[in-house]
């Protein structure tokens, strides 16, 4: 090697966006998720005796 040799580089930074975009609660089958309304039961456990 004759004389000093140098190099320089590039490391390119990229962001991969989520494939299907942000999750949208309003797009759920059966309509949007919402807090339970007054008098509404979230779920019931039925015991068949």
């Amino acid at each position: 090697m004759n004389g000093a040799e140098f190099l320089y580089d590039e490391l390119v930074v990229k962001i991969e966006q989520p494939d299907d975009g942000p999750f949208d609660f309003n797009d759920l089958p059966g309509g949007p998720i919402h807090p339970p309304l007054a008098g509404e039961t979230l779920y019931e456990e039925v015991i068949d005796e």
Partner: protein
Amino acid sequence: MAATVQIHEMTAAAAGVDKTSGTIRFKGADNQTVDTVDRLQIPTGATIFSYTKHARFYFQAGPSVDIQNLRCYTDGSNTFGTGITVQYNVPAAGLGTFPNINTDIAGTDLFTKTSGAPVDLDAINTGPHSGTGYKGDHIRMQMGVANTAAPGQLTPETLTFAYDET
């Protein structure tokens, strides 16, 4: 409303320069400027090392709910050329504990990390992540140059950061 997510090259434990879709340059000096000053000198003897580079996720605008599974990866092929390596590790406290150095960090080959087996960037600072600011772990990287390297400008490589947003 989707979050606005950036990748910052860190200048301190919780401060950095936006490098999203930008370039990180491994240099013989500790700064974030992408220029041709402080080029890496090919050694006549033992391998030399660039100053380390820390990168981290930054949420400029937070997600609706949260962001998880922070990660980054390469294409799995080092095309920087003969005698050039890039190694990494994930120090817990980033620059606050690990100032940038130009001595061997004895890390893992960055090009072993692919989309199928990426660097986990929320193993220490675990998710789910919400709100704004710096999130997840710091990746610390360093280029090694052996005496077999050729002079000139290297072909760029890409480091891709990915996440899952809700």
